[in-house]
């Protein structure tokens, strides 16, 4: 029977892939179904050879173990702060479940974790409860931020700009090309930095926080912001000039214009030093 029967390449590939994606046969799909009739009712031994040292099943098992281990490892690399925050075991459970629901469809492993934060949101244990626990919010926010840093690091942008200095006229100040201002419900910047610095931060309490992520000379840097600064910088990011951003901050956020004139020189000096600004050319 199966001995002399060929398997079309496409059927074989569908069969093997199903054996990798569902090694324990937990889904409804019977992988043997895609093989020719002579294989129905047969086992994987009708496809894979035994060898001197290993039965066919063990040969396939090498691929099955490697498939999940490789992708788990990649998820842990993309979300290392989250893995620390959740603990290895819980993270691994989430990652495995995510990979089952969202098997990779990109040639680029960079995209593997693209939907992970959404997945965590969709599957949070208290999704339908009116009263939500805090920790899932924190984990989701951390996941989103960690993935965002990966994307920002690789983003296509002009890096040949002239950084502004003390003498740059105010109307020529523009944000550098790779600049993002984030709002969080938790001290995500603090937690992430502590983790990256090799400290062991505990899960923080909820607290509105704001931070800037900038890329200069292909390296990222993070800075804390206050709410006024966050809105102001976002107005600048939308393309406005300093005076336009000032107007919008007062008009839309109710920021007191007198107070703004007081703090602006301090902001400006600090941000020029931190390299937020380039010279408009």
């Amino acid at each position, binding site marked *: 029977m199966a*001995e002399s029967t*060929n*398997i*079309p*390449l*496409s059927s*074989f*590939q*569908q069969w*093997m*892939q199903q054996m*990798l*994606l569902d090694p324990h046969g937990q889904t409804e799909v019977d992988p043997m179904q895609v093989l020719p009739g002579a294989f129905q009712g047969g086992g994987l031994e*009708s*496809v*894979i*050879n035994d*060898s*001197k040292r*290993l039965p*066919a099943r063990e*040969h*396939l098992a*090498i*691929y099955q*173990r*490697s*498939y999940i*281990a*490789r*992708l788990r*490892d*990649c998820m842990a*690399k*993309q979300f*290392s702060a989250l893995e620390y925050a959740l603990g290895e075991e819980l993270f691994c459970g989430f990652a495995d479940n995510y990979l089952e629901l969202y*098997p*990779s*469809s*990109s*040639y*680029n*492993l*960079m995209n593997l974790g693209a939907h992970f934060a959404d997945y965590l949101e969709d599957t949070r244990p208290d999704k339908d409860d009116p009263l939500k626990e805090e920790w899932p919010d924190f984990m989701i926010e951390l996941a989103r931020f960690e993935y965002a*840093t*990966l994307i920002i*690091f*690789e*983003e*296509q*942008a002009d*890096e040949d700009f002239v950084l502004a200095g003390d003498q740059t006229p105010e109307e020529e100040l523009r944000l550098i090309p790779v600049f993002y201002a984030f709002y969080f419900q938790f001290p995500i910047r603090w937690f992430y930095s502590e983790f*990256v*610095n090799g400290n062991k931060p505990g899960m923080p309490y909820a607290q509105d926080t704001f931070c800037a992520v900038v*890329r200069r000379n*292909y*390296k*990222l*840097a*993070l800075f804390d912001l206050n709410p006024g600064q966050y809105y102001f910088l976002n107005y600048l990011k939308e393309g406005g000039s300093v005076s336009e951003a000032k107007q919008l901050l007062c008009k839309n956020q109710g920021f007191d214009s007198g107070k703004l004139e007081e703090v602006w020189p301090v902001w400006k000096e600090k941000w020029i030093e931190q390299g937020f600004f380039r010279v408009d050319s």
Partner: protein
Amino acid sequence: MTTNKLNLPDLGLGLGLRSQHFNHILEQQPEVDWFEVISENFMDSFGRPRHVLKQIVERYPVVMHGVSLSIGNTDPLDFDYLKKLKALADEMNPAWVSDHLCWTGVLTTNSHDLLPVPLNEESLKHVCDRINIVQDYLQRPLVIENPSTYASFRHSTIPEWEFLSSMTEETDCGLLLDVNNVYVSSFNNDFDPVEYLEGIPFDRVVQMHLAGHQNCGNYIIDTHDREVTKHVWELFRLAWQRTGGTSTLLEWDGNIPAFDVYHAELLKAKEFMSGDFNGIKSVEEEDQVVEAVSNPIHFMVSETRDQLEV
């Protein structure tokens, strides 16, 4: 100097470009003959990795080595992928572009593994047709590597060396002979690695790979995480003689050591090339019990954090 039919140059002894070594290479400009880069790590990168690569191609010859072409796949060829691969090749001007005899996933799923192709007339025709399309599209020869395999199939009818030989004849593509993969596959699938080498058309070999592997007792995993073993050096010596000299690269993807340690392991190849291998210290096979992952992911991610000011 060139000894292959494709007229591709012998670049000498090269190393895989790893992000851990970026700064060392840029600052020290070490005397390495050439570098091999994983295409997928740069195709969509417009940040530091690509910026570093641009500086490296100014100083060193570079070869692009891919893991996602999926030449044996029955899904249609991914022209979005090919377009980006071609764009990177046009920008970096590599000595050649290579990938593996494998498939990576069907029905739009990607397993990110180098999965084995059953070797028979159908798959040979399928692979050759696709190599021809890719070569036409890229406007350059493709170089195909023998992968490490962990299974063989009842409906395979052609030994791998014969498959590779017919494939190069049909398509004029080049071969990247990974002697570590020959050893790993031969151990896992009961064939004689020397017979394998006897069947290889050496005038098509434009490059060789060396790497370390992990012996798990009754099977071997291609981990690229340690020194090259004695058996693999021996196969390298045999293959080297047959090629008459060809570009040779040491792969190292897990537990990546300091640059100098990596380079020193590569330079051991010189002793085997000259035949004076009795004095050299090479590691014996050792059984390991720790479970390893086949075909390491070659994926760079940690750099984002290494390059972070926090």
